[in-house]
């Protein structure tokens, strides 16, 4: 090394001296550094130092020593000019190749050492990603609200609009206009909560806590243009003690369509479309005669059980909790709008006809999600809402 360094210094002195003169002299002593043996030795030294570098700092030192401005190979390359012109190309090629080898070795070692360092550091920075991080208490929508919205949206997608009305309602809207004649036993089908007169006098106030969402039909027929397609979700009231399937205040959703030429075939179509969207296609629906004063004909709607699809009815089959092995589930009441309802709303029943249907929101929710006790819906326990989160 020392010899090489000395020769480099000599070369520089000479170069300065002869700065402007072409290097025509050949000095065999001064170009020892370019001998193949010297180059090979320098290469081996460089590769050894690079391989021996155990850290990025050591590699940096090795790089300066063997590839820096004062490295033997760098200095050797500077001697090329001292060679006779015919030897320069060959020497230059030899030095260049070796320098390339050294650089590549440094690069490889650099990458390896960096990778090693990164792994060490990142491993040291590792955390336990299984730590829970719920800093905020969990909120949720109420499943009955979500169910009402879901059912509404099915009909909104069919072009219906959502209509609403008051929960404390005039008897005329709740009964008379819906063709519940005064003193007709039909009024007793729904145990009614009557509102006391505000002035404290005895006798009827003509006001009730609405027993169904049907008064919204009347309000819609009186205020909206025809044809009319509305769906009305909302809370309704009955004078009924709570049990696992009954509440004094619960939710219904009703649909009403009034147009020219509507028939029971359209009613069946609307119900089938509703069941298809809600429970998936392929479940049959069935109408059977029933009685509601505001529809004529009236029917109750059952659908094939969405859980067992009727399989539980067969002898020896596993029982079905959802349909109690009946194969069918009662879903809704429906019918063609009674012409008396249209007349009470000032609509010509000789021109317009319509259909209506209604179902319990809680019941639909309980069916779809296997809920056993309706009282859970008004208990206010956060676990009930949280189980459903933000969407059903």
């Amino acid at each position, binding site marked *: 090394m020392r010899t090489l360094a000395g020769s480099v210094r000599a070369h520089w002195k000479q170069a300065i001296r002869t700065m402007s003169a072409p290097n025509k002299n050949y000095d065999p002593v001064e170009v020892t550094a370019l001998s193949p043996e010297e180059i090979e030795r320098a290469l081996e030294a460089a590769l050894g130092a690079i391989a021996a570098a155990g850290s990025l700092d050591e590699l940096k030192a090795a790089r300066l020593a063997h590839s820096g401005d004062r490295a033997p190979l760098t200095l050797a390359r500077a001697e090329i000019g001292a060679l006779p012109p015919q030897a320069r190309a060959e020497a230059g090629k030899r030095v260049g190749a070796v320098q390339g080898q050294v650089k590549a070795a440094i690069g490889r070692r650099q990458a390896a050492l960096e990778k090693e360092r990164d792994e060490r550091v990142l491993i040291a920075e590792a955390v336990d990603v299984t730590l829970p*991080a719920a*800093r*905020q*208490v969990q*909120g*949720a*929508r*109420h499943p009955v*609200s979500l169910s009402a919205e879901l059912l509404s949206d099915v009909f909104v997608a069919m*072009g*219906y*609009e*959502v209509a609403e009305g008051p929960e*404390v309602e005039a008897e*005329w809207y709740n009964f*008379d*206009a819906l063709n519940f004649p*005064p*003193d007709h*036993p*039909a009024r007793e089908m729904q145990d009614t*909560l*009557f*509102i006391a007169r*505000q002035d404290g*006098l005895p006798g009827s*106030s*003509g*006001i009730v806590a609405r027993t169904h969402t049907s008064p919204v039909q009347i309000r819609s027929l*009186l205020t909206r243009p025809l044809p009319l397609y509305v769906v009305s979700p909302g*809370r309704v009231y009955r004078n*009924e*003690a709570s049990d696992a399937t009954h509440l*004094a205040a619960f939710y219904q959703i009703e649909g009403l369509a009034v*147009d020219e030429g509507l*028939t*029971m*075939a*359209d009613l*069946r*179509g609307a119900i*089938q*479309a509703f069941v298809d969207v809600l429970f998936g296609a392929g479940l049959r629906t069935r109408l*059977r*005669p029933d*009685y509601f004063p505001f529809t004529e*004909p009236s029917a109750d709607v059952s659908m094939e059980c969405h859980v067992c699809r009727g399989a539980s009815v067969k002898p020896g089959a596993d029982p079905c909790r959802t349909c109690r092995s009946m194969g069918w589930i009662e879903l809704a009441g429906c019918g*063609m709008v009674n*012409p*008396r309802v249209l*007349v*009470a709303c*000032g609509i*010509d029943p*000789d021109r317009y*006809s319509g259909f209506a249907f209604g179902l319990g929101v809680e019941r639909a929710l309980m069916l779809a999600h296997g809920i056993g006790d309706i009282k859970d819906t008004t208990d*206010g*326990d*956060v676990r009930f809402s*949280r189980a459903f989160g933000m969407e059903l």
Partner: protein
Amino acid sequence: MRVPLSWLREYAPIPEPADHADIARRLTAAGLEVESHEPVGDIDGLVIAQVQAIEELAEFKKPIRYCRVATSEADLAADPQSLRGVICGATNFAVGDRVVLVLPGSVLPGGFEIAARKTYGRVSEGMICAPDELGVGEDHAGIIVLAPDAPLGADFTAYAGLRDEVFEIAVTPDRGYAVSIRGVARELATAYGVAFSDPADPEPADLALLGSLTEEGPDVYPASIGDPGACDRFVLREVRGFSPSAPTPAWMWVRLARCGVRSVSLAVDVTNYLMLELGQPLHAFDRRKLTGPIVVRRAAAGETLETLDHVVRTLHPDDILITDSSGPISMAGTMGGLATEIDDASADLVIEGAHFSDVGTAKMARRHRLHSEASYRFERGVDRELPLIATARAVSLLASLGGGAVVPGCTHAQVPVEPVTISMAAGYPDAVAGVAYGRDTVIRRLEEIGASVTQEVAAAPTIAPWRDQAGRTEGAGAARAVPAKPEGQPGPVAVLHVTPPSWRPDLTDPADLAEEVIRLEGYEELPVRMPRAPAGRGLTAAQKLLRSASRTLAESGIVEVHTDPFAPVRDADSLGLAADDERRPAVRIANPLSEDEPFLRTTLLPGLLRALARNVGRGFPDVALYESGLVFRPRPGALGRAPILATDRGPTAPELASLAAALPDQPQHIGAVFAGDRELPGWWGPGQAATWADAIEAARAVARAAHLQLQVRAAARMPWHPGRCAELYLCPRADDPPVDPPAKGGAAPLSPPGPDGTKPVPSGMRTTAEVHVGHAGELHPRVIAAYGLPARACAMELSFTALAEAAQAAGKVAGPTLSSYPVATQDVALVVGAAVPAASVEAALVTGAGDLLEEVRLFDVYTGAQLGEDRKSLAYTLRFRAPDRTLTAAEASAARDAAVAEAGRRVGAVLRG
């Protein structure tokens, strides 16, 4: 209604063997929903026996008899002591009585096996049966004593018709005719396509006894109708010399029991039997207890009647009575009077069958809370032709089963009633169903239900003949325009004139006839036509807003709940409401479920607070809940009564207004309550308790969902902590700021437009008044104690209705103009009096800073000794930006200085040195 199949079969001979599931399916498809089916009376080993000897065993605690029974004619001649011995605990029989013996080896209902065994010191080879032991009714008062002509040794099961199938049918209130064997059998016959024989067709034997059905008999007890609105047919017939002790035949009391009716005496059983079979309630009077002619009339003021249930009832002037010269003797179609009741000595019977007003009996039953089998049928409509027939069958049965003589003829009072005829286009059922049934099918189905039909070709009749035509042609006052039928006379069509049978008073409209045709043709046959989508407008702005407000709250960690809308009396006091608080007057339920909860809620908070306490009690201390729903506030000066409007025409606008004026206010509210930590503690550090600020922020979040910026000022209002309660409101107009009062007291600040384009006020609102929205903050300690809540629980409640209206008035959000020039930020710390609301300082900064101000944000509040008593420092970051250039440092500083100067002028703020 419970119906035994054997009884139906008498009139509807459906093919044997009948499949009960198929019967149930067909009846249900015809509109008579079969709720359950029960096979009954499948008992072997019952024989008719005669008691030949009774040995009383006295050594036991109760009377025990050891009986010797004969089971064949040969036994009658044998020595009684050689006959079969049976132990019996009943005493209602004597030697010579025919009884029901169950032989060893038989199994009685309930799996009770009979065996020969030693009991009470004797060998008992069987058992003498009481009705309940055979599964016939509940009666266990004594053993069955049969009529003396019951065939000795015969199989009792066959003799009495025990083996049967009972269907429980739910009859809807419109179909009164189906509350009878007659009505159900008619539907069953139609469903199976077999011939129906009508039990109401008079039998030749009856006619022979009575002459013609309508023939009057001068010797029959006299009667007249005093009020033609109360009763349009009243028939009496008589049996004299009847044996009051004659037993009811086994087949009759078995059938009564199958239908759930208890056997009383032959006379009563016959009237009940015929009521079940035909649907006509009948009443039997003891002739010797009647005085003077019978009159059907309304009650006079002050009249009373002691009814069969031994209750003395004060009668109402609308009550329909059957009277004689002694006064009321029966409440028509509801319950008879005690004084004229038949008893075990009544030999001369007057049988009454009548057609009373359906509404009249319904009202009377409800008024007296006296719902009987008779009133149940009259309310639903009874066949007006039945009184003549049913009474005829009654006296005929009584005479043949109980001896005695039928008095020829009847007393028949009636008010003539015109039969109803409904005109209908023959194609109307097709148009309702969406099916081409064709005229022949329609006529056939209508005739099947008993209607008579004639046809002609004429203009199509209206389907609403009851419509108030006068009101319709005037039309002026109608609340909505009546859409007129398109002009142009349709051509003549086939028109049916349909006279429904007398047992179908429910059929009054063409729509009723259409339903009959469609149900008999089968709902299962109806086609499905998938909907053609009309062009809907989707959800309204308010509906969308409610959903997004709800979602906003839920996503901020608050759980939606639904609470009971019924409010206890004590809530107003528990909330500490003042006597004149607008939440104190409540809508009261006249017939509440619980006397403790007679009101509907006026605020959401009590329900939410109870739910909060419940959750904390169940081990969830860190809970936030919200609810959206209606609250109910009586409208001051509202009418006491909502009128009942006409239904034969559309209501007029003033009529609808009169309904609206009677209803209470029912705004939609959103409320939220908070307890425990809003942010939970954990490995990341300590938690953050929910505070008054979270309650206010929840309200602000709801308003932001409506693109509205809620204003806040200090307020004192229960149930909140007086120092930690915010009133929430909206300011009317951005360019019309309210004048700030002096620093102390409630300031009315104005906030700047938010960076996201939220508007401080609904700009389109015409009013200059503030819009009050609600309150939020920490609850008053007394309220926390009253509801058992954790300390420092918080709440907010706002009117969603007010918010939605304001949002609606505010119109669409104006899109922001985004400047891409650099922002210039300036921080200022202002020292003000401790009582100055931050909102006032902020409002002053906004006004002073001018248009270059993009955002102002409070980032620190500091109090300390070096500021001095009653001072605080508020540190704000002001962000300035110009739309068209880069602001110079001098411009930004000038705007800042102007802001500070305005704060100094308005609230005495000074820059902190």
